[in-house]
């Protein structure tokens, strides 16, 4: 087990395409770090560079106290779990798990003992003599995990290990990997495009976009204090709502307008001075709205209501005055149409589409972003 360090790692393809830009990160011993972001954000490239499967254009990689930048993958003492599991199809499950130990010339008795033990931990003892092709997706996943943990490496690298599983199994394996990490405590870097996986599993999340790290934080911080509009829109489901409003001076605090509601926001005086009487980008999570009239409320007309049983997603249009002209942070949620907002309402009765619906807001939960740079300002 070891800590890990990336120093200014950069990856450029063909001299022009920047896949990874100046990536630096310290990972503590035993930490579970998740790289997350939309496809093409550089997270897999980063993982491959750590594994030694791809050269970095510049920068250095440290595992423990060794600079492994020039090391072949074999010498880095890491284990990796792949999205397609990459089990050796010509070998039995037993030989698959033992492969890494054999390559390291461990004594046969020792190999057998460790394979048995790992099989017991993962509950795959009955599968040891089968071929990978005779296994179900979940079983393959376990074998792939077994092949990684049997080696007792310095670190685990996992490249979207759950994305080939169906939804139910994914939730189950998510918990299981979490438990496994608790139990053996090996430093783990886990790559996924699924923000739920990131939020539930990580000690720390590295959120990436177009090869650039957007924010490094623990899940709660990332949810509550997103560094920019992209992070805010990426984390959380349904994704954060965005609209535009003029920031003006209110009775005691600065205010923004949403429809006919006036919402006070918290903002440092010097920041307010910079943005006063200008448009800002406002972010409001769907769960921070509730039904009924309150101190800060407005009436909307839902154009779609989805019921999930205990909660309802209410879709309604953004008031014309608040529409966002252009947004580069485009939410990952492809179903969201531009300038539609979602309210996530718990335990409410029937809601009519098209009928007026009073909604109240929690002003303290409002996020403000610079409209140009999209950086958080409050």
């Amino acid at each position: 087990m070891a800590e890990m360090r990336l120093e200014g790692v950069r990856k450029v393809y063909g001299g022009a395409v920047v896949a990874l830009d100046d990536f630096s990160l310290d990972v503590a011993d035993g930490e579970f770090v998740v790289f997350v972001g939309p496809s093409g954000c550089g997270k897999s490239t980063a993982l491959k560079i750590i594994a030694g499967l791809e050269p970095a254009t510049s920068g250095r990689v440290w595992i423990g106290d060794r600079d492994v930048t020039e090391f072949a993958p074999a010498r880095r003492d890491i284990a990796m779990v792949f999205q397609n599991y990459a089990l050796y199809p010509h070998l039995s499950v037993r030989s698959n798990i033992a492969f890494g130990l054999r390559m390291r010339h461990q004594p046969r008795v020792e190999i057998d003992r460790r394979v048995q033990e790992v099989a017991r931990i993962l509950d795959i003892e009955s599968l040891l003599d089968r071929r990978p092709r005779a296994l179900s997706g979940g079983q393959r996943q376990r074998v792939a995990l077994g092949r990684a943990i049997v080696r007792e490496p310095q670190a685990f690298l996992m490249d979207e290990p759950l994305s080939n599983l169906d939804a139910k199994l994914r939730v189950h394996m998510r918990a299981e990997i979490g438990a496994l990490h608790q139990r053996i405590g090996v430093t783990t870097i886990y790559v996924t495009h699924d923000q739920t996986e990131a939020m539930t599993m990580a000690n720390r999340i590295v959120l990436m976009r177009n090869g650039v790290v957007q924010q490094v934080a623990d899940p709660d911080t990332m949810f509550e204090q997103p560094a920019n509009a992209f992070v805010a829109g990426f984390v959380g489901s349904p994704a954060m709502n965005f609209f535009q409003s003029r920031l003006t001076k209110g009775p005691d605090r600065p205010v923004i307008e949403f429809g006919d509601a006036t919402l006070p926001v918290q903002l440092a005086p010097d920041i307010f001075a910079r943005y006063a009487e200008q448009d800002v980008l406002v972010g409001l999570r769907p769960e921070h709205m509730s039904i009924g009239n309150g101190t800060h409320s407005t009436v909307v007309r839902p154009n779609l209501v989805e019921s999930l049983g205990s909660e309802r997603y209410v879709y309604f249009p953004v008031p014309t005055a608040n529409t966002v002209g252009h947004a580069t942070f485009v939410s990952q949620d492809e179903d969201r149409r531009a300038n539609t907002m979602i309210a996530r309402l718990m335990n409410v009765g029937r809601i009519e589409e098209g009928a007026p619906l009073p909604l109240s807001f929690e002003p303290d939960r409002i996020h403000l972003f610079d409209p140009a740079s999209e950086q958080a300002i409050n």
Partner: protein
Amino acid sequence: MAVQTDLQNRTERTLGSSSWIGRLRALDLSSPRHADKLGYILLAPAVLLIFVILVYPILLSVDLSLQDVDIPRIGETREPYTLDNYTKLFGSAEFWRASWVSLKLIVVVTSACFAIGLATALLVNQHFKGRTLARLFVALPWAVPEVIAVVTWWWMFDSSFGLINWLLVTLDLADKPIAWLSQPVPAFLVVSIVMIWKGYPFVSIMLLAGLQAIPEDHYQAAKVDGAGAWQRLFWITLPSLLPVFGVTMILVVLWVFRDFAVVFILTGGGPIGATQTLSMMTYEQAFGFFRMGFASAIGVVTLVICVLATRLMVSRMAKSMY
């Protein structure tokens, strides 16, 4: 610079290694930094072999075609450059006749191969018991070496005791046995039949693979829309096969154009040049009359035609598909 030495020191200290080991390690071809070098090393033997047995001979043959040379000796001073071989070639009636024979052979053999190949492929694409065996049988002539196919058909077309003549006479289709290989048209026919028999299995195998790649739901959808068997053939099967058709056609045409053994063994190009293809002419000039410079010129022209025809067909096909 200072940072780099510092890093190096740290690396070496942690490895506890002296500098030559460090240098050796730097040569580790599995290191991400050196992976590309391994790519070149793996490629090198093949490139070397290809140079010796393909690139150099091709260059040599182009070189030969530009000399007035009979039997070349490597290392001897070469004859002066001349385009004589090419001017002689394009001026000779024999060349144009051989081209015409090649073209006729391509048209006849290719179309017959496609007719038989498509029919057999459609047949064994049906679901029935024993179709694995039927598939194996239908394409079996592919496995018969050309020389053997030629002698077998030769025997069947034997003018005195051949089965075909007996059949034709018995069925009153001919009044006397036909001397197949000593008359121009029948000789051409025999050459064509042997090549068709050798060539159709390839078409059949390819089209069968193409047929199996057509998703079943296309047929289901067509059936729901009320298309009959023939309509399904014309509106779904054949259009879906078009890309496979293209590739297969190129390969068959190239094969017919370049083939040599069938004509050489059966007729040697005769009678009176009726089966003299460009390939046959090349070989005869080179190893019959030992005019290797001239023969090389024919060969080079053949190669150029092959490349041009392929390119033409590929671009045509690409256009018709989109």
